């Protein structure tokens, strides 16, 4: 018998309104993890941005030119445990030095995709253990892809990379060093980048909202959506701006660009989306959508077959009928194909036979002609032989004399 889902009204205090608090306390005790991957060519601002986002020096800024050392993409990861307001976050940032740095960058996406999938596989392995211990979650929750701010549109390497990885990870494209572009250039560039992304049907992470959310959250999300891809700058240096406040930014002879100023760049929006509002959603999407897709694919290839008898709703008779119908169709198709092949073969054989017939006829004719010739030759020879045997007639003699007289 199915349980009835009726809405009942409480008549007194029960106490389960405290559930969220229990969950909250437990999750704080457990702590949170977040794994972020950064991909972009050397010198584009990956380390600076991460250090700026988390207000801590996770990456040392690389000074040396890495030209001679690099061929191919490496995967390195840095971990840090940071704490804010009693909440512990175990942050792991995975770097991909070498991406886009060689002359030939084909297959630069491969090691990255393999790394992401191996993390999924590791998780799958842990899930399938007979005795499950504490599962460590190393899966990549978000991948920040750094787009070079050329001002034109996406480069071939950008499109290729995003197409290869958008179904395996939450893609967040970001435009670093946005101080290269003026406001007009930036709007044009962003629209062309989004046009490219839509044209190639690349799925990027978009903040969505629940229709039941309050108006402020919805407006916030819509704002963020409008600014994607985010154009940001990063800085760990602070200066005093015009109004006397000390802010993080980059100081130029012509002015000071502030990291946290929303009219200068989209850094605040990026941080809000990535950390404040949608961090959990990123983790969720990784767990429920991306990981599950990978898992099903993996299990299919491993030979597991979907066992439909587990589903109560489906009807075994109908299923068998369906199967039989499909099978019949297949048989018919095969029959038709075999017929067609047979016809084709017959025709070929016919044409071949005709050809050989013609050849034979031609040869036969030739032989006949040859024979005829030979026969005539033989006749002549016979005549000659016969003529030399006879004595010379007087007529010949006369003729001969005729030749020499006069």
């Amino acid at each position, binding site marked *: 018998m199915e349980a009835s889902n009726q809405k009942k009204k409480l008549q007194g205090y029960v106490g389960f309104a405290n559930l969220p608090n229990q969950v909250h306390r437990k999750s704080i005790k457990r702590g949170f993890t977040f794994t972020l991957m950064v991909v972009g060519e*050397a*010198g*584009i*601002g990956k380390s600076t941005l991460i250090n700026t986002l988390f207000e801590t020096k996770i990456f040392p800024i*690389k*000074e*040396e*030119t890495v*030209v001679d050392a*690099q061929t191919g993409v490496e995967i390195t990861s840095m971990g840090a445990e940071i704490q804010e307001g009693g909440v512990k976050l175990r942050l792991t940032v995975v770097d991909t030095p070498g991406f886009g*740095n*060689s*002359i*030939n*960058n*084909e297959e*630069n996406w491969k090691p990255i995709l393999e790394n992401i999938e191996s993390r999924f596989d590791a998780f799958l392995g842990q899930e399938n253990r007979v005795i499950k211990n504490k599962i460590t979650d190393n899966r990549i929750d978000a991948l920040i892809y750094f787009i*070079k*701010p*050329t*001002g*034109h*549109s996406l*480069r*071939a*390497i950008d499109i*290729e990379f995003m197409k290869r990885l958008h179904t395996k990870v939450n893609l967040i494209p970001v435009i670093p*060093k946005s*101080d*290269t572009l*003026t*406001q007009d250039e930036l709007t044009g560039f962003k629209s*062309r980048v989004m*046009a*490219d992304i*839509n*044209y*190639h049907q690349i799925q990027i992470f978009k903040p969505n909202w629940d229709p039941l959310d309050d108006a402020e959250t919805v407006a916030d999300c819509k704002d963020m959506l409008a600014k994607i891809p985010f154009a940001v700058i990063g800085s760990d240096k602070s200066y005093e701006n015009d109004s006397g406040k000390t802010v993080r930014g*980059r*100081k*130029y*002879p*012509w*002015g*000071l*660009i*502030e990291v946290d100023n929303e*009219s*200068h760049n989209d850094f605040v929006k990026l941080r809000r989306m990535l950390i404040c509002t949608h961090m959990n959603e990123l983790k969720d999407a990784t767990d429920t959508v991306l990981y599950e897709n990978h898992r099903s694919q993996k299990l299919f290839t491993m030979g597991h077959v979907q066992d439909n008898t587990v589903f109560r709703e489906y009807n075994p008779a109908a299923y068998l009928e369906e199967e039989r119908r499909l099978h019949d169709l297949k048989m018919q198709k095969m029959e038709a194909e075999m017929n067609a092949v047979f016809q084709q073969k017959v025709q070929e054989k016919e044409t071949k036979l005709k050809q050989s017939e013609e050849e034979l006829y031609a040869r036969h004719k030739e032989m006949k002609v040859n024979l005829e010739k030979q026969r005539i030759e033989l006749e002549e020879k016979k005549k000659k032989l016969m003529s030399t045997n006879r004595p010379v007639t007087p007529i010949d003699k006369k003729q001969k004399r005729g030749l020499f007289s006069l």
Partner: protein
Amino acid sequence: MSKQQSVKLTDYVGFDTIAAQIGKKIFKKGLNFNIMLVGESGSGKTTLVNTIFSKNFLESSGRKQAAEKSRKTTEILITTSVLTESNAKVRLTVIDTPGFGEQINNENCWVPLVKYIKDQHVAYLENEIKPERERVIPDTRVHVCLYFLNSGYRGLRQIDIEVLKRLCEVVNVVPVLSKADTLTVDEKMKVKEKVREAIELHRINIYPQPNPQDDQAEIELNNKVKKVMPFAVVGSNLTYEEDGEIIKGRKNPWGIINIENKDHCDFVLMRDFLLRTHLIDLVEVTSYKYYESFRTEQLQHIRDMRGAQPAQTTQQAQQTQQAQQVQPTQPTQQAQSANPFSIAIPAQQAKSPSFTKPSVQSSRKYISNALSK
């Protein structure tokens, strides 16, 4: 034996007007200036050229539409314009290279560039050794190649090193750090330092090269320029008003960049370098360094193909070695004594580390002599 003596004139004779006379002749002949722009899409090549000449006469060749496919190879795009300023006329040819460095696999992306440069040398040489040739040979040889570096990167990338090495063998190369408005003063110094180090490390011969014929002033100027290289530039043809002045620059919410301000970027230095001080030098160096070495190679090749015997070639080589230090007229006699079927090479063009500038007249007479045999 002719005697050479230096005489100091006491009265004013008036042949110091040579400069003006030469100037007039050159402009009547028409000066051709050919610039090649090499850099990834979006490095700011088109904007920079438009800024140098203060006129938007070039159009960007970047991919603007999503449905447009990106280029599969480096293309060559030529735009020729005749620029007039007071009484000077220059035929400016800008050679753009869309598709350079844009693909995922950029191996051999420099091949179309080097091929184009060499083709121009070939065309000039063909025109030059024609028995009946024009009074003024159209000069399509590339005089300078502006190589645009990624201002974000710390130094030179692999592709930069490969391409620069190959380009420096055939053309004057001037490296440029475009979009320098993304670098703070400290970063700018660091990046320039890194680039200069890498250039020295890989022995890339960028322009200007030291020339033993330079006088003190020229040497000083070249040293000054070398200290600033690579030029960190910003390009823009938009004007804004700041403090009552009209300035050319880029406007951002945090400030306005003034292109002509030496503290903001090196644009003025680069423009003066290219147009006001080193323009003729670029043309000359192309002619007597890159073109001459190409020519030597080609004519030597022709001579080898015509079958000069090995003994005679060594004898000739010895003769040309001796003749190296001598006046231009002497090699003609020696050539006449050589194998009549070979085009002997003028002594000055034998490979020597010092780049002596032979007079154009003597080599012309020489070739016509050689060919008329």
